[in-house]
């Protein structure tokens, strides 16, 4: 008998399970990675690289890869969050905010991507990508 078959005599003690409404920070970043790829017409390739943090946290790096520079990578920011997903601790070159919800995280990302520092970095990577 397969594990997922329940005999009439076994009572499931699980309540009705509902997926969380919020998306994880990694999923939000994956969407933004895809958006950057489209916007740069794949001259830059962004990826979300997952690894484990301290204790029961998840960590994800938002990497920008330049395929024409022998796959040179630049880590733009790192997020670390618990199983419950929020609050998320963000680490970038100039700030380390802690954001309590998905919306707060997206709002911060919008301003971070539009910042002079990020535009300078992405611009430099694009410029070098085009030269090859």
């Amino acid at each position, binding site marked *: 008998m397969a594990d997922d078959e329940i005999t009439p005599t076994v009572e499931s003690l699980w309540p009705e399970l509902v997926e969380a409404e919020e998306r994880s920070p990694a999923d939000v970043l994956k969407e933004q990675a895809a958006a950057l790829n489209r916007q740069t017409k794949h001259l830059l390739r962004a990826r979300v690289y997952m690894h484990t943090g*301290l204790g029961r946290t998840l960590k994800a790096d938002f990497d920008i890869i330049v395929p024409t*520079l022998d796959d*040179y*990578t*630049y*880590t733009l920011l790192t997020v670390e969050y618990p199983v419950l997903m929020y609050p998320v601790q963000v680490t970038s070159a100039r700030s380390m905010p802690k954001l309590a919800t998905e919306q707060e995280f997206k709002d911060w990302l919008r301003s971070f991507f539009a910042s002079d520092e990020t535009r300078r970095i992405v611009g430099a*990577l694009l410029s*070098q990508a085009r030269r090859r």
Partner: protein
Amino acid sequence: MADTTASKAVAPTEREGSSPSSPTSTLNSDQSEERRLRPKTRFLFWNLNRRPLTRAVCDIVHEHTIDVVILAECDLSTSNLLGALNSNSSEFHVPTAPVSCFKIFTRFRGDFMRPRHDSPRLAIRRLVLPAREEITLVVLHLPSKLYFDPDSQMCEAIVAVDKIREEETEAGHDRTVVVGDFNMNPFDKGLVVAPGFHAVMARSIAARGSRQIQGREYPFFYNPMWNLIGDRHPAAGTYYYERADHMTLFWNTFDQVLVRPALVRGLPVDSVRVLTTVKGDPLLRKGVPDKKNFSDHLPLVFDLEF
């Protein structure tokens, strides 16, 4: 970024004991032969603490014939510093670095140092010099104890090592040298634990290559900085910090160089030194780093044969 001189395509090779034409030394014939085949490259790492130290950097570079200059917390303009380094010659170049928080200058063509990865705290480069084995150069500046507790610092070390191992897999070799401001001492968790740098004080231990724990393989680093701690040296460390609490080391050795076992023989113990003067001027004042006139960190110089 200018390739200022087309003629300087040759890596630095002519150092004492390394020239193929040097006279027979007192070393036995095997060591002598090996030294003739392995040129030395001299590295400088200095955390400038955002101070305008162009003159001091240039003086050190020329006094010690530095081949690779690596600067952290450097707000100096790259072009101005390059101009200063090349004030009497055109030897120095700026390797390609799409985005980097470190400033690196080389006494060889910049395209011999290939960028592989950058992040706010880590830079990875492949150093491919003519007729020399490729090595991986990692430069880092890990978070400060002011903001991270020891466990968090250990976690950052583990993340950095994961990145290094990823690069070693891609490179297909483990000829790796790591240099920078670790913001940890050689005995701190992040330097010692197996998933961290796993950096040992003895060459004989590092020579084992790696160690297995719970079925997982953890390669060693060799840490020569253990030899530079304490009163045998002009400075007992590389960074001085004193505060009024119970646990104060006063001198710390935050600025370190580590090598994988494959490069241990190319890093003689006496080739690693912490500088306390520049052209006769002391970098210390009242026995501690003179952060008013120089930096709160002392410069680290080492020779690597490869």
